[in-house]
C-alpha cells in the first residue's frame, strides 16, 4: 500500500483493465511486424505504448514521399533510407521499457527461406502481404503454433483476421460474477441465515437486513411447503415474491430498500445453480480429461482439477467465486456475509489447488508448480472461462473447406453487409497477382492512365469466379461495391490505418494478456457507414 512507483503510475489507466498479471504477460510478449507500413506502425504504436516485451520490424522498403502521407513514423529526412530502421527508431522512442530490433529484409523472402524465424515470436502481425506468401506464412504460424494477425487496409475498408490454434481465457471479464447459491446454501450460509429472527428485530435492523438473508429465509419457507422444489412457473414465482413481501414492515418514514432489492433479485433465488453447458464441455474436453503431459498448459491442468472437484467436493457445482454484490445492509451483516462466501470460496480453491498439485506431479512437471494466484483466478472465473479454437487460414482459403455459407447468408440478408468488402478484397488480391497492381490503381511502370471501366470488369469477373467456386450466386456482390473498390484502388488512407491500428492492437492485447475475448476470427470495417462486422471464416 505504498505510493505507486513511476512504472505503476505510467501504466495506471491500463492496469485498471488487466492488472499486474496481465501487464506481466504483455511484457513477456515478443511481437513481429511484417512491413513498416502505415497500418503496421499504427498497430505496433498501440502495443509499444502499453509496454509489450519486444518488437522486431521486418521490412525491405525504402522510405518514399508516399509514406509521408500515410505513416506517422517516418519524416522527410528519412526519404531514400531503409523504412525498417526509420520506423523502428521512431516507434521505440515511444517507450523506453520496450526492446526492439529491425531486419532490413523482404518479408516475403523471409517467409520463403526462413520459416523457423517466426518460431521465436508470441505474435506475428502481417501487413501488406497477400496471395501465396500470405498463405505460406499462415501455414508456418499454424505449424509452429505462433499467433498470427493478418491485416489489410483498402481505402475506407479495413480487414483483420486472427489465426491461433487454441486460445484459452480465464478472465473474460463478464460484467459481473454473481453466484450466491440460494437454491443450495452451504452449511455456513444456511446457519447464518437461520441465526436471524426477522420478527424479533427492531425496525432499524429489519430495514438493514441484506436481501440475501431475506431471500434465503423466504426460499427456506417456500421449500418446506413445496417438497423442497424451487418456484418453477409464473404463478409460483409471483407467489414467492408475495411471500417475500409478507416479511416487509410498512412503517411510516422507513424506506425498505432491502426489500426492493430482494424483489428485484428474486429471480436469482429460483434460478437453479448449474454448470453452464459451454463450461461443461470445457471440463469434458479431452485436453482436460486425458493424457496430461509435461507440456499440458496450466489452463488444462486446472480445468481437469476443477472437473475432479465438481465430481467430488463440489457435489456437482463449480468452485464458488466468493464475491458478494453490494447491497443495502448494515456493515456487520454485509461483512459477515462476505466472510462466509469468501471462506467457502477459499476452501473450494484449496481443494482445487490440492488436486492441481497431484495432477502436476502426474503430468511429470512437479518441478514447475502452478501459482496459487492462477488457481484462485480460475476458480473465481470458473463459470466464464473460454476456449477459442480458430479455423486455419488454409481452411478458409480452400473453397472446399471455406465457410461460404456465412458469407452467402450475410449477403443474402443485406446487400450492403461488410461481407461484400471481404469478397471484393479476396477477389481484388487475385486481380493484383495477375495485373501486378490493384484494380483501378495507375500502373507505376508504364505510367498509362488507368481504364477504370475495364478494371471494374476484371474485378467483377474475379468476384464471380470466387463466388462460383464456393457455390454462391455470382451476382451476390453489388456493382456499387465493385465500382467503389476500383475507385479506392488500394489507396492507403491514414485514417483507415489508424482505425485498424486501434482495432488490431485491442485484439492483440486481448491475445497477449489472455484477458477479455478476442474476435473469432475475422473483422471487416466499413469506413463509409462506420460499421464493423465479425465473421467466423
Amino acid at each position: 500500500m505504498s505510493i505507486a512507483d513511476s512504472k505503476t503510475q505510467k501504466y495506471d489507466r491500463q492496469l485498471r483493465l488487466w492488472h499486474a498479471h496481465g501487464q506481466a504477460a504483455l511484457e513477456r510478449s515478443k511481437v513481429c511486424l511484417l512491413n513498416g507500413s502505415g497500418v503496421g506502425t499504427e498497430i505496433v504504436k498501440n502495443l509499444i505504448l502499453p509496454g509489450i516485451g519486444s518488437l522486431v520490424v521486418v521490412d525491405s522498403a525504402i522510405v518514399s514521399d508516399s509514406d509521408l502521407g500515410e505513416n506517422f513514423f517516418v519524416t522527410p529526412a528519412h526519404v531514400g533510407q531503409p523504412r525498417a530502421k526509420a520506423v523502428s527508431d521512431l516507434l521505440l522512442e515511444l517507450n523506453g521499457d520496450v526492446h526492439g530490433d529491425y531486419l532490413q529484409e523482404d518479408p516475403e523472402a523471409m517467409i520463403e527461406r526462413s520459416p523457423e524465424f517466426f518460431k521465436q515470436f508470441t505474435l506475428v502481425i502481417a501487413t501488406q502481404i497477400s496471395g501465396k506468401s500470405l498463405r505460406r506464412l499462415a501455414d508456418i504460424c499454424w505449424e509452429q503454433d505462433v499467433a498470427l494477425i493478418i491485416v489489410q487496409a483498402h481505402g475506407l475498408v479495413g480487414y483483420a483476421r486472427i489465426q491461433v490454434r487454441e486460445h484459452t481465457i480465464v478472465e473474460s471479464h463478464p460484467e459481473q460474477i454473481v453466484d450466491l447459491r440460494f437454491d443450495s446454501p452451504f452449511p455456513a450460509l444456511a446457519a447464518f441465515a437461520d441465526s436471524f429472527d426477522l420478527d424479533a428485530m427492531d425496525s432499524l435492523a429489519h430495514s438493514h437486513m441484506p436481501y440475501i438473508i431475506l431471500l434465503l429465509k423466504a426460499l427456506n419457507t417456500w421449500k418446506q411447503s413445496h417438497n423442497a422444489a424451487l418456484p418453477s412457473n409464473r404463478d409460483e414465482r409471483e407467489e414467492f415474491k408475495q411471500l417475500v413481501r409478507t416479511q416487509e414492515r410498512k412503517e411510516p418514514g422507513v424506506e425498505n430498500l432491502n426489500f426492493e432489492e430482494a424483489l428485484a433479485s428474486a429471480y436469482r433465488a429460483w434460478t437453479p445453480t448449474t454448470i453452464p453447458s459451454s463450461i461443461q464441455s470445457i471440463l469434458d474436453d479431452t485436453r482436460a480429461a486425458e493424457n496430461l503431459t509435461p507440456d499440458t498448459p496450466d489452463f488444462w491442468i486446472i480445468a481437469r482439477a476443477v472437473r475432479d472437484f465438481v465430481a467430488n467436493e463440489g457435489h456437482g457445482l463449480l468452485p464458488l467465486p466468493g464475491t458478494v454484490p453490494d447491497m443495502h445492509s448494515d456493515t456487520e451483516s454485509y461483512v459477515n456475509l462476505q466472510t462466509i462466501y469468501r471462506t467457502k470460496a477459499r476452501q473450494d480453491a484449496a481443494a482445487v489447488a490440492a488436486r492441481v498439485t497431484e495432477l502436476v506431479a502426474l503430468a511429470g512437471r512437479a518441478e514447475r508448480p502452478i501459482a496459487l494466484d492462477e488457481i484462485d483466478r480460475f476458480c473465481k472465473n470458473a463459470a466464464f472461462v473460454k476456449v477459442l479454437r480458430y479455423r486455419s487460414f488454409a481452411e478458409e482459403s480452400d473453397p472446399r473447406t471455406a465457410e461460404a455459407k456465412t458469407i452467402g447468408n450475410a449477403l443474402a440478408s443485406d446487400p450492403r453487409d461488410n461481407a461484400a468488402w471481404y469478397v471484393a478484397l479476396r477477389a481484388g488480391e487475385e486481380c493484383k497477382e495477375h495485373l501486378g497492381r490493384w484494380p483501378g490503381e495507375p500502373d507505376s511502370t508504364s505510367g498509362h492512365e488507368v481504364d477504370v471501366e475495364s478494371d471494374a470488369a476484371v474485378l467483377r469477373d474475379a468476384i464471380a469466379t470466387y463466388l462460383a467456386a464456393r457455390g454462391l450466386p455470382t451476382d451476390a456482390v453489388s456493382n456499387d461495391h465493385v465500382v467503389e473498390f476500383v475507385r479506392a484502388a488500394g489507396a492507403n488512407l491514414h485514417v483507415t490505418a489508424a482505425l485498424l491500428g486501434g482495432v488490431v492492437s485491442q485484439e492483440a492485447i486481448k491475445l497477449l494478456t489472455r484477458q477479455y475475448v478476442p474476435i473469432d476470427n475475422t473483422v471487416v470495417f466499413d469506413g463509409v457507414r462506420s460499421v464493423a462486422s465479425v465473421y467466423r471464416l
Partner: protein
Amino acid sequence: MAPSINSQQRWRGVYRYLERTGPFANEGFEPGEKVKDFLHTIKVLVVGAGGLGCELLKDLALTGFTDIHVIDMDTIDISNLNRQFLFRAADLGKPKAEVAADFVMKRVPGCKITPYFGKIQDKDEEYYSQFTIIICGLDSVEARRWMNATVINMYDEDDPETLKPIIDGGTEGFKGQSRIILPHFTACYECSLDMQTKPTTYPMCTIANTPRLPEHCIEWASVLEWPRTFPDKKLDGDDPEHIKWLLDQASARARQYDITGVTYSLTQGVVKNIIPAIASTNAIVAASCATEAFKIATNCATYMSNYMMYVGEQGVYTYTFELQKKDDCPVCGAVAIKIDVPANSTLQDLIDLLMERKDIRLKAPSLRTGSGSLYMQAPRALRDATAPNLVKPLRELLEDGGEITVTDQALPISMNVTVRFSD
C-alpha cells in the same frame, strides 16, 4: 531534409478518393483540384489534446488538413504517457496543447497547428466561427455541453456559413463512441443527455454510518474527514501526499469495520473518478472522428449516420444508428418542455423536479417569466430578493400552462418550460 516533397505522391491515397467519384460518394461531391485545395486550406479545431486529441492531430495532419487549431487547459501528467503518444517523460508539467502542436508540426512538415493553452470558455463566438469543422476529444460532460450549446447557438439559418459540424468522440476502457452533430439537422449532445451515465455516487448515510465497500471508506475520508481536518486546504487528487493521507484514514476505517480492499490505486481512482484508458481505443475513436472530418470536408463519401458505439471487451461489436433529434431539446429544440405539477407545490418543488430530470441535468438554475424574475442565482442582491419566492405555491406565481425560461450559470443554455397544473 529532403529538398521537396512531391505532394501528388505524398497524398496519393487521399487524392485517389478526391480525383474520382463513386457510388458511395456524398451528394454534391465534385472530384478535382478544387476539393483538394479546400481540404488543404480549411481551418479545423480540435478541442482537447489528451488521449483523443493527440490521435486526432496526427490523423488530421496525415489526411491533408494543414490549418489545425487545438485547445486544452491541461498539463502533462505521468499517467498520460501510456497513450498520449506525443508526450515524453521530459514534457511532464508542460501544456498539452503546445507540446502536441510542436510535435506534430515537426513530424508532418507543411501542417500548421496553432495551440491555445486554456479553457474553452475563454473563447467567444468570433473565435469558434473561424472553423469549418470542430472535433471534440473531451473527457467531461460539462465541457461537451458547453461546446455543443455554444456552437448550436451560433447557427443562423440565413447564413449557411454559421453551420459548424461538431464531431465528438469519447472512450472508456475497451469501449468508445463517435458521433456527428449537424446543428439543427441532427440530434445534438443535449438531445441525448440521458444516454450519458452519471458518475457513481454513494449515499451520504452509507458513507457516514453503514460502510460496506472500500469505496465507502475512501469517500468518508475524502468527503467528510478531509474538510474536517483541513478546512482551508483543497484536496488535490494529483498530490501523492494527499492521496496517502486519505489512504491512511480510509484504511483505518476499513479495519474498524472489517472491510478489505482499500489500496492506493483504488483511493486515487475514487477521488479522481478515474476512467481506464488505453491507446487502442483512443485510436479507434479518433480515427472514426477523423474519417468523418475527411468526409464532411470533401463529400468524398456519405457520412456516418450519426452515432457509433464500439465495444471491444467481448469480441468486436459496433452499433451505428441515427440518434433522433428531440423537439423539446433545451438547446436545439423548437418546442417548450412540458412539466406537470400540482398548483400547490412550491417554486422550490418545481426546481427540484427540474434538477431531477436526467435529460436536462441542471446545476444551478435561474427561472423567470415574461414579466419578471422568479428566482435568480446571481447577482447576490437579486438572489436575496427572489429567494422568498421559493416557498410560495406556484399558483401565486404562475398561470396554469404558463411559460418560464430556465437558464443555468454553468451552461450556455436557455430553455422554455411550460408549467401545467396537474390538479
